[in-house]
């Protein structure tokens, strides 16, 4: 079960199930799979709609969300994160469907002032790790919506 992909823990942008997510992020767009038949968002991605079996297409969403939960990670669990701690990893609920929780970094936000259900918005950043030289991946991150 050892992970041999040299770019780990960067995402594998070629993985079929999630490639469209990162392809959209490369264009500074946030896209989520939605059922063509019943219009439900399906997250995490699946091969087909778990409700009706319909096919899925990746659809752009607004990038507006609310803060569902978060953790301020202080322990280095993987060597790649050694220079990054402390950081805030968060689950944000999309306004289009709060059942869709995007796992993300919460950046440019005052950690001590975070409150549940705060409005957040997507921003796009290049993600890189010191353990993976010369490679970065454009990803959606979120910040508390500035007043």
């Amino acid at each position, binding site marked *: 079960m050892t992970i041999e992909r040299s770019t*780990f823990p*960067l995402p*594998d942008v070629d993985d079929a199930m*999630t490639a469209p997510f990162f392809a959209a992020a490369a264009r500074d767009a946030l896209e989520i799979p939605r059922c063509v038949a019943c219009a439900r968002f399906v997250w*995490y991605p699946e091969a087909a709609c778990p409700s009706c079996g319909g096919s899925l297409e990746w659809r752009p969403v607004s990038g507006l969300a609310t803060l569902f939960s978060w*953790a*301020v990670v202080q322990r280095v669990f993987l060597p790649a994160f050694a220079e*990054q701690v402390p*950081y805030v990893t968060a689950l944000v609920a999309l306004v289009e469907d709060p059942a869709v929780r995007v*796992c993300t970094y919460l950046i440019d936000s005052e950690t001590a002032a975070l409150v549940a259900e705060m409005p957040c918005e997507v921003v796009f950043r290049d993600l890189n790790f010191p353990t993976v030289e010369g490679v970065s991946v454009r990803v959606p991150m979120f910040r508390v919506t500035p007043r």
Partner: protein
Amino acid sequence: MKANLDWGYSNPLDDVAGQVAIVGIGETEYSKASGRSARQIGAEAAERAIADAGLTPSDIDGLTFSGTFGEFGVAEFHAHFGTSHDMWSSPWGGGMAWAATAPYLAAKAIGEGKARHVLNVFPVAWATQRSSMTGGPGEVHAAQSLKQNLEVPFGFFPQPVYFATIMRRHMIEFGTTREQFGAVAIELRRHANHTPGAVFHEKTLELQQYLDAVMLADPLCLFDSCPISDGGAAYVTTSLKRARDLRHDPIVVQGVAEGYSGSGTHWAQQAAFTTTPQVFSAPVAFAMAGVVPADVDVLTCYDPFTVVALMQLEDMGFCGKGEAGALAESGALAFDTGSLPYNTHGGLLSHAYVLGIAHVVECVKQLRGAAGAQVRDCEVAVYGGYTGHMASTLVLTKDR
């Protein structure tokens, strides 16, 4: 708050109340890195459980083990004991949620004449493996592609981080305090202090130490998280009729159930974020056993993190949703002075992280009157298993 129960289900099981009993238990040393392999640990646990039952390896004609980890199956059994007889087996046993449901598989196999004496075994050597950076709970998860692409790159990894977000949400929704989470950690540590063999037998824990502890992922601190351990345990199940001829008083299997979340295996996407599928399992097991929560003398639950301990207390019906923090803070969980003695061996948090198998063994010990932190007049003991998308419940009693 009224629970919305459309997010999961109970897997229907046949009524096996009173059909089989646990007649032997075996435990290895519980420790930090021991240098031993899981296979060696499994063999030792098996040996001891068989001896405790007063049986020989050739009497064991059924084996349940963890197919997920596959450390001690039929081939390993025969290689260790030098036996070669036919054995019924199932890879849906071992630890975690399956430590509760393995006796159901045994009851079915015994009832159908496929086996007489069924051994369930679960070893783990993650503390040893961690020193070589293989194995362990994190790696199992990192290998899943959705986690690898949508969670790990965003720092949502490993388990202490997931459960920090669940803990945060429990605080948000119910007002649960750090002192209340700390009350669980402290009570379980006290139980470990009364339990010889517990990894933290010698180390005490006070509230101020808890509050001052290093954060792994705020709000989850060091003492909210279980350690990584080496160790294992096993138990032998046979028909109640046969059990009455063996050396120990039978510990009777009265109720078994399993509940599932329909939201899949990812914690981040659980529809009921602060509720476990125990809401679908415990009531079914209690009904099979003909007991209610107030009848339970000892409760052991899979407790990798303090918030999981609290959620299961709520979801099994021992208090209302969101009330377990106050319950723990009231002292109710104490083995000697509480109304609901809980994880009396110290649990995963302070006994050892052997993934629930020692919880079932503790239930048997309590019912035999042989536990370290012994509860007086223990008649009904319950184990609640949990793996995220699955929960399970095992109700054990003395032979009535």
